């Protein structure tokens, strides 16, 4: 949810709660004010009538109008003092409905020792209408104020938070591996100036570390190459020796295997750091289906040996501008992957069109988290001597050319989909 929306929602909900509570209290207060007033009037009238009864011993002359009804009954014997005021409903024949009244009843004994009952009704519906009207006016006023406040708040927030969104956008677009350092726009708000400063400082530090790490990786892999080559060559000479016994050979074998593994690891890492450092800049137009053909041909015998059925669906010729050896490595890694992890009598399906390359293969279930499939040194227990860099290299090449890759599993079918459309990736970034 956007910041401004969130603020507005908080604002509206708090105001609404405040208004509901306020409105309730206001309603009670205004009602009680009106009723108190009304009851005072009724009491005054009653007192006037009692006074008249006391002094003149006669009933005053009331003009009874509807809505203000006075009934006085006088008795010869005295009456206990008693009285109350309550709200009651009377039926109005003209309007044909019940109408609320405030009703005063007072019983008592006059000075002349005569009892009386005074009953005064006063219409309430007009008062209630008045209260309703006041409340309605208040509601409208409140709604108008709230709308105005939200409006003002929204637009002022937008301009206040503007630099923040700008910073956010710059950060989003920023890639630590690109050549230029992070540039953030200026702001007049102190907090944002501080934020931008902190971010710039942090990104500089990260960039420095990133580049020195990259350099270290490449240098380390590079420096390891020669010693490894020497070990390899000496081992190869050693196994040629006629004097070696079987026991000695069995001792040399693991050393040879381990060294081979190390060399492969080293070459893989070197390749990754070279891709990382963008050292494969020579690009040309590459026909992808040709590379697929070539690789399938290269591994034809192993495919036959495992009795794997290859289904190939080239929907249209696809030409990509890539570095030739990287394109080769990409495709061959994917295809060997689909062969290595395949099962006897399995199948491989390859689908190629302008948008994507999809390679599916039957295989054992993954023994690693699919999320980590493209990480370095991630490998299933079954892949034996593999150094676990194949898919990491694939991912590296994919990143370099801003393609995307996705892994899907349905049943025992593993699918890797490479999406060639760069726009797709940009959309993803915006959405996230």
């Amino acid at each position, binding site marked *: 949810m956007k910041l401004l929306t969130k603020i507005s929602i908080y604002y509206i909900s708090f105001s609404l709660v405040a208004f509901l509570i306020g409105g309730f209290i206001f309603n009670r207060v205004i009602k009680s004010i009106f009723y108190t007033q009304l009851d005072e009037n009724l009491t005054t009238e009653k007192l006037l009538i009692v006074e008249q009864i006391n002094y003149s011993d006669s009933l005053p002359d009331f003009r009874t109008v509807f809505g203000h009804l006075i009934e006085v009954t006088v008795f010869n014997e005295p009456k206990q003092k008693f009285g109350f005021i309550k709200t009651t409903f009377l039926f109005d024949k003209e309007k044909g409905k019940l109408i609320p009244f405030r009703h005063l009843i007072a019983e008592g004994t006059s000075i002349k020792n005569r009892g009386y009952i005074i009953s005064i009704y006063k219409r309430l519906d007009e008062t209630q209408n008045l209260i309703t009207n006041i409340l309605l006016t208040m509601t409208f006023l409140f709604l108008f104020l709230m709308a105005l406040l939200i409006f003002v708040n929204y637009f002022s927030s937008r301009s206040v938070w503007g630099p923040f969104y700008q910073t956010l956008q710059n950060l989003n677009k920023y890639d630590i591996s690109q050549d230029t350092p992070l540039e953030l726009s200026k702001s007049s708000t102190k907090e944002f100036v501080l934020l931008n400063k902190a971010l710039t400082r942090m990104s500089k530090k990260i960039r420095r570390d990133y580049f020195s790490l990259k350099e270290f990786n490449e240098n380390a892999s*590079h420096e390891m*190459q*020669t010693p*490894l*080559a*020497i070990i*390899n*060559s*000496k081992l*190869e*000479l050693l*196994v*040629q020796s006629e004097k070696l016994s*079987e026991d000695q*050979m*069995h001792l*040399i*074998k693991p050393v*040879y*295997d381990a060294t*081979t593994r190390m*060399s*492969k690891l080293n*070459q893989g890492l*070197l*390749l990754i750091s*070279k891709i990382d450092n963008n*050292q*494969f800049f*020579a690009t040309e137009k590459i026909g992808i289906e040709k590379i697929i053909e070539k690789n399938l041909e*290269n*591994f034809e*015998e*192993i495919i036959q*040996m*495992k009795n794997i059925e290859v289904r190939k669906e080239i929907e249209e010729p696809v030409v990509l501008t890539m*570095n*030739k*050896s990287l394109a080769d490595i990409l495709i*061959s*890694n994917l295809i*060997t992957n689909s*062969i*290595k992890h395949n099962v006897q009598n399995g199948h491989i399906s390859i689908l190629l069109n302008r948008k994507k390359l999809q390679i599916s293969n039957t295989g054992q279930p993954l023994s690693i988290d699919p999320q980590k499939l493209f990480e370095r040194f991630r490998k299933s227990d079954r*892949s*034996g*001597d*593999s150094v676990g860099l*194949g898919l990491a290299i694939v991912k590296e090449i994919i990143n370099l050319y801003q393609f995307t890759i996705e892994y899907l599993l349905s049943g025992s079918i593993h699918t890797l989909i490479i999406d060639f459309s760069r726009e797709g990736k940009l959309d993803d970034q915006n959405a996230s």
Partner: protein
Amino acid sequence: MKVLLIEDEKELSASIETYLKQENYLCETALTYNQAEEKINLYQYDCIIVDISLPDGNGLDIIRELKENQSETGIIIISAKNSLDDKLSGLGIGADDYLTKPFHLSELNARIKSIIRRRNFSGKKELLFNEIRIIPEAMQVFVNEKLIILTKKEFDLLIYFLSNKDRVLTKESLAEHLWGEVMDTADSFDFIYTHIKNIRRKVMEKGGRDYIQTIYGMGYKFLSQ
């Protein structure tokens, strides 16, 4: 057969030299660009193995110099730089082959033989070994003058063995020779095992001898007697 090895890493140079000398090549070494330049100006070589990154110069310049002299020398680049640019520029200026370090000595040996075979204009482009006769260009193999049918990979295997007679060829080196670096898995070792069996059978069916020996889980060896 005269070979010049231009490689600045002493120990690596020594290993290659040892291996090639066992193949009865006349192998000379140069550790620097200057030494190499001197030697190519003084002597004629059948094949030159050159490292691209030398302490005092670029191996590519040596290739250019050789090519200016219209030399018929075969050239193999060996480079630690696993980069296509080197490979392309090297092959572009006339190198015959390119090997990335680290490589198997047996692979280097096979490449040298292949170049020399291709450059051997006078002689017939044939490989002869006892009762086996191979015409590489036609991909034909005769045993006792009877044609045997080998698959492409079996054919490659046989040539590789014949290039490295009496050598222990590790399974890894065979797999890499057949498929490149990516296919060093149990699958490929199984495949190699099956196809070596096939080669043996096909050669023996036509009265050939069984030359291929298994070496204690390490690999195989093609015996010359």
